């Protein structure tokens, strides 16, 4: 009886010991907690457009044929070891890396390494309407289409298991940088086949399988995402054993969590918290000039803004340095070009329109408006890294414009309506901005200022100017970066002379993390990737 009792007493004791052992094991395993700002919309980066989706899908789970070097926009080999471009620039041949394994998960076990079939599967899903996955999960490949890849790629041919040829309809240099973008993440064709047989195609975009440094484990919307280090990652296992995204939408709550040690890393700390965070001995704040621009778009199709003198008068009337001080709290630089200074081909020689009220008045008189005029100025209803407070900036602009006799009525709408009406060209002056996707100047100059974009809506000035158009078109097809640089620099001079925007600011981006986080490199593209990061 007594022996039985002893045995019974041993069971919970052993249980406790086992629990204690597990706790130690859990502590020994390095778990990195990232307080992210939003839930991903999907785990397939082909279908996403936002940073939260890319941070949760393409960066931890997938690789692309080429990638951006950590912390830069330099394109480096990834799943493709090298690539050749034909003389006419219309054929690109990628030579694929061998023995790269897709993730093994409870829902998929790969039987073969990554090969050309996966590349074809990935791109044909977005390219071909008859692909079995084309219509899955809504079937809208917005990034792929907006980068014009659907018109640019004529065909993709498998030369052998480790060689793929992309045939293009025209030569276009930025395509290599496009291949490093999130939407070009390589999916597993074998996983696709498995799901197709089970008639569960949509699971491909919900439970991802990639070749990346972390294996997706679980997701609870608006709560958390869990990953484990990929033990067979081709560049070596991550020093972190587990990666957890604690989805925390409120920026103030994120900061509190960081201070309390509930997370190791937060994205985009509010500028007002930076001083306190820098003073905190347990926290490191990193900063980098962002790949972005904030601008005041001038609708050149609406009088009096069709007159160059009026546009130039606006540029001289705005005291942009005061906005940098008051709104960005000094965490930005005044913009003079439409592309940021960190981007290649940035033209240092561009002469900026200095803040000069007398000159502004003079230009207005020359244009036939000695007493100014009345207009409406739309300010952004949302905060963006390139413009943290649209309303305040609008008020400061209104005061500046009043000094030269321009009476600007401030107006805004709900963000959806704002974009809707702006696309329709209902505005006169509009506050807007842009964050780059791939580090190529074309991604700013074509997307925001080309004649095509004037039709599609992302050129909110509706400015279509042939001398500028010619330069950016020429630069797009060339593969010699020196020649491209020259053309883009010239384009920036033309842009400045015609003043379709008042260029406002290039803001800095910030990240805050606990002191024990090592090896993190800020991406100029604004995404957060944790391969290479360690906890000391």
């Amino acid at each position, binding site marked *: 009886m007594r022996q039985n009792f002893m045995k019974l007493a041993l069971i919970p004791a052993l249980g406790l010991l086992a*629990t204690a052992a*597990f*706790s130690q094991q*859990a502590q020994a395993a390095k*778990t990195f*907690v990232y307080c992210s700002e939003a*839930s991903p*919309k*999907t785990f397939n980066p082909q*279908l996403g*457009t*936002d940073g939260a989706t890319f941070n949760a899908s393409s960066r931890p789970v997938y690789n692309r044929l080429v990638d951006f070097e950590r912390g830069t926009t330099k394109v480096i080999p990834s799943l493709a070891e090298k690539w050749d471009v034909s003389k006419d620039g219309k054929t690109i041949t990628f030579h694929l890396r061998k023995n790269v394994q897709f993730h093994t998960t409870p829902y998929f076990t790969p039987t073969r390494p990554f090969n050309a079939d996966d590349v074809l599967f990935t791109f044909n899903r977005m390219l071909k309407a008859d692909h079995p996955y084309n219509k899955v*999960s*809504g*079937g*809208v490949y*917005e990034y792929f*289409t*907006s980068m014009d890849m659907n018109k640019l790629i004529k065909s993709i041919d498998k030369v052998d298991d480790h060689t793929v040829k992309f045939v293009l309809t025209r030569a276009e240099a930025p395509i290599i940088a496009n291949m490093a973008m999130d939407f070009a993440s390589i999916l597993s064709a074998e996983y696709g086949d498995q799901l197709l047989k089970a008639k569960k195609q*949509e699971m491909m*975009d*919900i439970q991802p399988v990639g070749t990346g440094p972390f294996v997706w484990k*679980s997701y*609870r*919307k*608006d*709560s*958390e995402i*869990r990953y484990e280090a990929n033990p067979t990652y081709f560049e070596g296992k991550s020093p972190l054993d587990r990666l*957890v995204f*604690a*989805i*925390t*939408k*409120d920026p103030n*709550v994120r900061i*509190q*969590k960081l201070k*309390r040690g*509930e*997370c190791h890393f937060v994205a985009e700390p509010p500028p007002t918290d930076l001083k306190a965070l820098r003073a905190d001995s347990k926290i490191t704040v990193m900063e980098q000039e962002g790949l972005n621009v904030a601008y005041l778009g001038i609708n050149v199709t609406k009088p009096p803004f069709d007159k160059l003198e009026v546009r130039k008068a606006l540029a001289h009337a705005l005291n942009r340095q005061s906005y940098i001080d008051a709104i960005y709290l000094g965490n930005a630089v005044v913009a003079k070009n439409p592309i940021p200074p960190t981007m290649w081909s940035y033209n240092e020689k561009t002469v900026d329109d200095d803040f000069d009220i007398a000159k502004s008045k003079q230009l207005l008189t020359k244009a036939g408006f000695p007493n100014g005029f009345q207009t409406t100025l739309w300010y952004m209803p949302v905060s963006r890294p390139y413009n943290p407070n649209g309303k305040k900036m609008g008020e400061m602009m209104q005061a500046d414009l009043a000094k030269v006799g321009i009476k600007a009525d401030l107006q805004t*709408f*709900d*963000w*959806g*309506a704002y*974009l*809707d009406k702006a*696309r329709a060209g209902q505005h006169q002056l509009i506050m*807007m*901005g*842009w964050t780059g996707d791939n580090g190529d100047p074309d991604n700013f100059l074509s*997307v925001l200022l080309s004649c095509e*974009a004037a*039709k*599609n*809506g*992302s*050129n909110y000035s509706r400015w279509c100017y042939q001398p500028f158009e010619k330069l950016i078109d020429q630069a797009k097809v060339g593969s010699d970066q020196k020649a491209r640089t020259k053309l883009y620099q010239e384009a920036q001079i033309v842009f400045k002379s015609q003043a379709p925007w008042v260029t406002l600011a290039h803001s800095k981006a910030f990240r805050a993390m606990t002191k024990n986080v090592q090896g993190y490199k800020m991406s100029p593209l604004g995404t957060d990737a944790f391969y290479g990061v360690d906890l000391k």
Partner: protein
Amino acid sequence: MFRYLLKRLAEVIPTLIGITLISFALIRLIPGDPVLLMIGERGASPEVLAEMRSAYGLDKPLPVQYGVFVGNALKGDLGTSITSSRPVSEEFSERFTATLELGVVALILAILIGLPLGVLAAVKRNSLFDYSLMTTSLIGYSMPIFWWGLILILIFSVQLGWTPVAGRMDVMYDVPHWTGFYLLDVWKSTEAWPAFKSAVSHLILPAIALGTIPLATIARMTRSSMLEVLGEDYMRTARAKGLSRTRVIFLHGLRNALVPVITVIGLMAGTIVTGAVLTETIFSWPGIGLWLVDSVRQRDYPVIQSGILLIATIIIVVNLLVDLAYAWANPRLRGK
């Protein structure tokens, strides 16, 4: 009784139709196109926009969209979220357990504290305790939840560091999905006890914020109901028969005073849901409140219209059950 049930069920149908119409129309009255919101500053060609609108069924005329929504809902298909591409019913069930857990705990807290306080205030009528309780409960009743929630966070999480700032559980604990109620699911976790403590510490502040209005209501209701009962003849008789004061108050008094209090508690389901919208937003609690607020921001039409329909249905069913319980208890109501 059966006829009464049929009559009440027949009344539910126009209510549900009204709800589908209102939820469908209201969200479309707010300016902003979900497709353009998704695209953002980027802009897209008219073809891409048309393709996206067609993929989400937004290219069809409004009456057709409404017909599709109602038709599918009748078949049990509540549509697919525009932003997450997941079925609305699946998202709802995930979220609803979080709201239910928070709501139930808030209500239990409100009952456990509100009831005895109300009884005490009635017994000690016109005393300092009574006056201070009634004043405090009035403040509690009139306090905006968003403000109260923030004050709680500032004091207990930021200043004192006693509770976590937000969320449902420390992310270090990987709790397996079993019932969706974390207080139960943690027992399936390998670190059950610390995970349970983490779940409780995360739950406490939102439950207080959400439970404050019900607590104040219950305390005030119990007090006034008790006062009425305390003056009844049978109470005096019971005392005269020699029963102790405590026994009379709790056994004879509270039991009779509880009837209107229970009615109020039944009606609190609606208050809890509306309060949850604010509480969840402040505490980043991943329930239906936060889900709906985000969906409105993103103009996720299927989520809003079906989410509201589901919540309304649950409230209607709860009210129907309460009414049926009354009718069962009080036959006179059946004829009305």
